[in-house]
């Protein structure tokens, strides 16, 4: 008996050892541990194109529970598509809602001509049944109320067939009535929905949507930020007042918050600075005319009083050409405007027609239709109520499980305010059975359904330290690396980089008049300090090559990389192919020009660009010497003791929006430290100092624009699909930070570009080049009209123009590119993305393409088997 027991024990022990060896081998599998799920094969038939025979495809299935464990800092409180306001509130949208069209990666099943699998994307109908059909001509003749221009033949009206299989999670059908009802409620004037603006302003503008939304009201719009009319565009009425081409009255905004001043008014400035900056001789008479809206109706007389105020004092530096920035358009909207006049109507049980106020076509049309506005009528009305005795309405639609109905891949099953929310598979979603939502795994070549995740558990975890501990215990799927984690985890197999569009640059104060004013202030000791030197190009050029951008990122912004141009690495100029601007020869040449790289010394343009570091301490020293000589000559600084060094310290105020934090201080210390290194042995050794400003709050941009603060690390983020639109940010005086000292409306640039098929030298101002690039017809000095907008000029021409604008702006050294924004995060060992490369449109595919190595039960066992139950990354 004893022997039998011993044998049994020995056998069990041997078996356990064998299992242990297998488990260790499995756990050493690196990034992708052995999958614990079993797959079953099912048969499905699909076609890959009109000319190819049907392919029998085996779709793998997943067995088990796969819960995506997520965390947020702030829990969504209102995900109503009509009223949500914040990014936090939009979190549930990815799970609960689907657009009319959607993006997926290109692969064997969804091929894109000329594109390798997973190197691009494909737009597929989701809530729509097919691609939109342009019906501009038909709608124009049948519905004159939509105001489609007589000359328009396409791009204004589309019919969209709806997906008849799309239903709410409770099985209720979603048809054309749903879309029309939802838009009517979205634009309802009494509801004042936050998201209404998304459909009446910008590029996606529903015809007459504004008239319905604003009915019975008077709207004041900032001309400089919107229409951009000049005085020549207006007509004078018989009453002596001026009117826009569409009949709205024109005013001068004296005590009206203007876009270009960051919300300040001209009156604020005149009262603050008086005759220092303005000609105030007519101000008293003019300001007496200000009405309750802060406006003065534009007449010849009022305009005559107004013009000297902004143009009469050189310190303000404006001309009549800048007057349009102060115009305000008053539009009076008729009452009782019927929704039937709005450009969205039912044209079939499962078909809607959309009419736009501005033409919209191609990629941009589909891109805009990737979001959706529909709401469930019964639930929406039940949760709508008036706020007390006020005129406001409030809705509790989409604020809880009870008030939410999904039509997306997941449904909300539990929600606790400021605590957690859980989504589970919505089995009524058409995507699980339509045969479209499948992909071919590039690794094993098998076909899998999208959305392997069966549930999403999201909870509030405010502290990064807690998130990290939970991640290491396998309780969260991702962890965004903090500065202190980067050294340890940067090279982990599980660390992923997500670049973003934004380039952060130093804006450098070049507004000499403002700087002179600051130096003239009582209390500024010109024997000890100087500000004027920073306006010298040689000085700014020296600063531009003083900092090693990659080293700076490593020290201060570990999840970012060095930034070299004004336009970031992620901007795509051709949405159909995903081609990036920064990869074009034109963009590369612009960088070489800016960094003075002689391309002829390299084997290729690529090699030349690769050589750019933006850091050249030797050149910096030379430039600082040159700047010293120029500053002495200009009388900005002195060298009384002839020691070859500046007597003054050039003080550069680093503009802070809030009180100086530890990180901000680190940044400033870093700037000073590296500056001290580079200026050693130059006349500015120990004579350049960055110091933090007082906290300016939201005023920081005004301080920079008006030269009252000297530098800041800032950036623009625009649409990743429109690098051309970015040019306006640097040359439009309403937007650019340096408008006070760099007038792009006066800088002429000549380029040789094809015009009517013939290479022609065209000279335009920088602003006009940008406007023409973005679709505005501009007139050259010779009276010729030019338009280099999309579909108006070859893309190569447009790229050359954009590169020239970028290069010209860079040469001002008003903007010194420093950082390409990005983020680092770790992904759990439990799952992986089907592709590693980051796609600017789809990222890595998100939850759609997330594939699991372990189901929930196997994962728990795997984590428990780790030393101390802690995962090693």
């Amino acid at each position: 008996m004893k022997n039998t027991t011993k044998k049994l024990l020995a056998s069990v022990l041997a078996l356990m050892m064998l299992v242990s060896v297998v488990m260790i081998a499995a756990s050493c599998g690196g990034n992708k541990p052995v999958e614990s799920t079993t797959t079953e094969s099912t048969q499905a038939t699909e076609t890959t194109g009109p000319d190819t025979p049907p392919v029998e495809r085996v779709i793998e299935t997943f067995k088990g529970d796969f819960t995506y464990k997520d965390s947020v800092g702030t829990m969504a409180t209102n995900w109503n598509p009509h009223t949500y306001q914040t990014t936090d509130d939009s979190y549930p949208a990815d799970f609960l809602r689907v657009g009319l069209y959607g993006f997926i990666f290109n692969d064997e099943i969804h091929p894109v001509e000329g594109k390798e699998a997973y190197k691009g994307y494909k737009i597929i109908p989701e809530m729509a049944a097919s691609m939109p059909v342009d019906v501009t001509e038909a709608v124009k003749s049948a519905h004159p109320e939509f105001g489609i221009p007589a000359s328009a033949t396409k791009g204004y009206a589309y019919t969209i067939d709806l997906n008849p299989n799309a239903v709410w999670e409770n099985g209720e059908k979603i048809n054309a009535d749903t879309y029309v009802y939802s838009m009517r409620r979205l634009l309802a004037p009494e509801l004042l929905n936050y998201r209404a603006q998304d459909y009446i302003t910008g590029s996606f503008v529903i015809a007459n949507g504004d008239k319905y939304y604003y009915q019975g009201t008077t709207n004041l719009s900032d001309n400089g930020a919107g229409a951009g009319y000049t005085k020549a565009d207006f007509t004078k009425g018989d009453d002596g007042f001026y009117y826009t081409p569409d009949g709205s009255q024109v005013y001068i905004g004296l005590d009206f918050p203007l876009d270009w001043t960051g919300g300040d008014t001209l009156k604020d400035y005149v009262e603050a600075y008086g005759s220092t900056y303005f000609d105030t001789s007519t101000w008293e008479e003019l300001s007496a005319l200000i009405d309750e809206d802060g406006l003065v109706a534009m007449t010849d007389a009022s305009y005559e009083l107004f013009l000297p105020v902004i143009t009469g004092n050189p310190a303000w530096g404006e001309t009549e050409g800048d007057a349009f920035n102060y115009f305000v358009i008053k539009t009076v909207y008729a009452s009782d405007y019927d929704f039937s006049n709005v450009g969205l109507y039912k044209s079939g049980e499962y078909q809607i027609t959309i009419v736009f106020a501005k033409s919209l076509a191609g990629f941009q049309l589909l891109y805009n239709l990737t979001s959706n506005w529909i709401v469930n009528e019964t639930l929406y009305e039940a949760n709508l109520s008036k706020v007390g005795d006020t005129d406001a309405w409030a809705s509790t639609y989409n604020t809880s499980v009870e008030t939410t109905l999904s039509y997306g891949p997941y449904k909300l099953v539990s929600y606790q305010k400021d605590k957690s929310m859980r989504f589970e598979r919505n089995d009524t979603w058409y995507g699980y059975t339509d045969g479209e939502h499948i992909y071919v795994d590039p690794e094993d070549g098998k076909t899998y359904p999208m959305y392997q995740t069966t549930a999403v558990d999201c909870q509030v975890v405010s502290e990064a330290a807690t998130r990290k501990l939970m991640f290491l215990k396998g309780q969260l799927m991702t962890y965004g690396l903090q500065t202190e984690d980067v050294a340890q985890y940067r090279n982990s197999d599980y660390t992923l980089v997500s670049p973003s569009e934004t380039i952060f640059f130093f804006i450098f104060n070049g507004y000499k008049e403002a700087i002179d004013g600051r130096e003239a202030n009582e209390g500024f000791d010109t024997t000890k300090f100087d500000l004027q030197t920073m306006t010298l190009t040689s000085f700014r050029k020296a600063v531009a090559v003083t900092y090693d951008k990659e080293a700076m990122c490593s020290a201060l912004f570990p999840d970012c990389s060095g930034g070299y141009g004004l336009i970031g690495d992620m901007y795509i100029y051709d949405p159909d192919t995903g081609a990036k601007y920064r990869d074009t020869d034109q963009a590369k040449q612009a960088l070489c020009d800016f960094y003075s790289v002689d391309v002829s010394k390299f084997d290729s343009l690529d090699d030349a660009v690769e050589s750019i570091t933006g850091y050249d301490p030797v050149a910096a020293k030379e430039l600082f010497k040159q700047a010293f000589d120029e500053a002495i000559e200009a009388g900005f600084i002195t060298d009384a003791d002839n020691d070859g060094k500046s007597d003054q310290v050039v003080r550069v105020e680093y503009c802070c929006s809030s009180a100086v934090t530890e990180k901000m201080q680190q940044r400033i210390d870093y700037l000073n430290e590296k500056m001290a290194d580079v200026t050693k042995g130059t006349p500015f050794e120990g004579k350049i100092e960055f110091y933090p400003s007082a906290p300016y709050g939201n005023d920081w941009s005004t301080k920079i624009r008006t030269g009252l603060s000297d530098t800041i690390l800032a950036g623009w983020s625009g649409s990743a699909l429109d690098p051309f639109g970015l040019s306006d940010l640097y040359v439009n005086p309403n937007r650019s930070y340096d408008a006070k000292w760099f007038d792009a409306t006066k800088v002429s640039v000549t380029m040789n570009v094809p015009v009517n098929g013939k290479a022609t030298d065209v000279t335009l101002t920088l602003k006009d080049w940008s406007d023409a690039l973005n679709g505005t017809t501009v007139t050259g000095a010779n009276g010729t009209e030019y338009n280099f907008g999309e579909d108006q000029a070859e893309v190569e021409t447009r790229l050359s123009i954009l590169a020239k604008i970028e290069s010209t702006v860079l040469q001002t050294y008003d903007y010194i590119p420093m950082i390409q924004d990005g983020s680092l995060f770790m992904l759990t060992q439990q799952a992986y993305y089907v592709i590693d490369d980051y796609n600017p449109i789809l990222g890595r595919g998100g939850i759609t393409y997330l594939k699991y190595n372990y189901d929930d039960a196997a994962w728990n066992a795997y984590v428990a088997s780790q030393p101390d139950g802690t995962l090693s990354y």
Partner: protein
Amino acid sequence: MLKYTLQRIVLMFFTLFIITMMCFILVRMLPPVEIPIEDPHSVVIAQRREAMGYNKPYLVQFGIFIKDIFTRFDWGISDKLYFGQNVADIFIEKLPATIIVNLYSIILSIPIGILLGIWAALKKNTWIDHAISTLTMVVISVPSFVYAFLIQYFLSYKLGWFPFLMKGGTDWFSPAMFVSMLPAVLSLSFGVIAGFTRTTRAELTEVLTSEFMLLARTKGLTRRQATVRHALKNCMVVVVPAIFGEFIGIMSGSLIIEKIFAVPGVGSLYINSINGRDYPMFMMLTVFYTVIGLLASIVVDISYGFIDPRIRMGSKK
């Protein structure tokens, strides 16, 4: 006593009115949360402010606020933090989590604090007293979020005894919920324990050296008897009102602890409502906590009379 109580209640309403009006006006004087002027949504924000009556004169708005409370008990609709939702409902929904975590904390910490205080007082100037006093000072000096992170690191991460965060759901008295609350409860308790230890020790030390204690011993009571019957009772004149204060404070929550352990309570509501200019939420919280504070002060003042009959408030004799 009745007259005094009534006087205090009348005074309480007057104070409440003044505080409410001041807070109402002051918070509205803050500039609205700025969004970039070029953002088209700024138009809607401005329109909604107008529709909500926020552009009316402050006193008119205050009148409407008071009227809505008295006629409909309507505290308003959140316009920012919980868009469209009734602020009173939100507060009531979130209050239990705060109350329960704090309640467990004081149930745990008051007896421990008092016992440690008594022990230190009885062992005055011994190593036990020195150890307790030093530890008390250390605990009081270190902010509670430091304990929170230490507890989370050692008890949840290293030892795995507790979950990192408080459990979701509203099963407030389930064992799983209790266990999940313990890290937060412990984090909150250290400070309270130290506070009561210090107070009790100081009071009891003073009482133990009083002449009546000497008399008690000389008339034949043992040290234990004298301490329990006379010293402790006298020392409670200070300790009991502090206990009342702790119980009343359980509704205010702790911003930091609730954040760290994801307690879905009211701790961050106040600050968020100010930052977000969520006027209805701010005013409801202001009135609620002001009432609680004023009531607490009345209860504490009256409690002195019950604990120590020698104290006669409002009496002219």
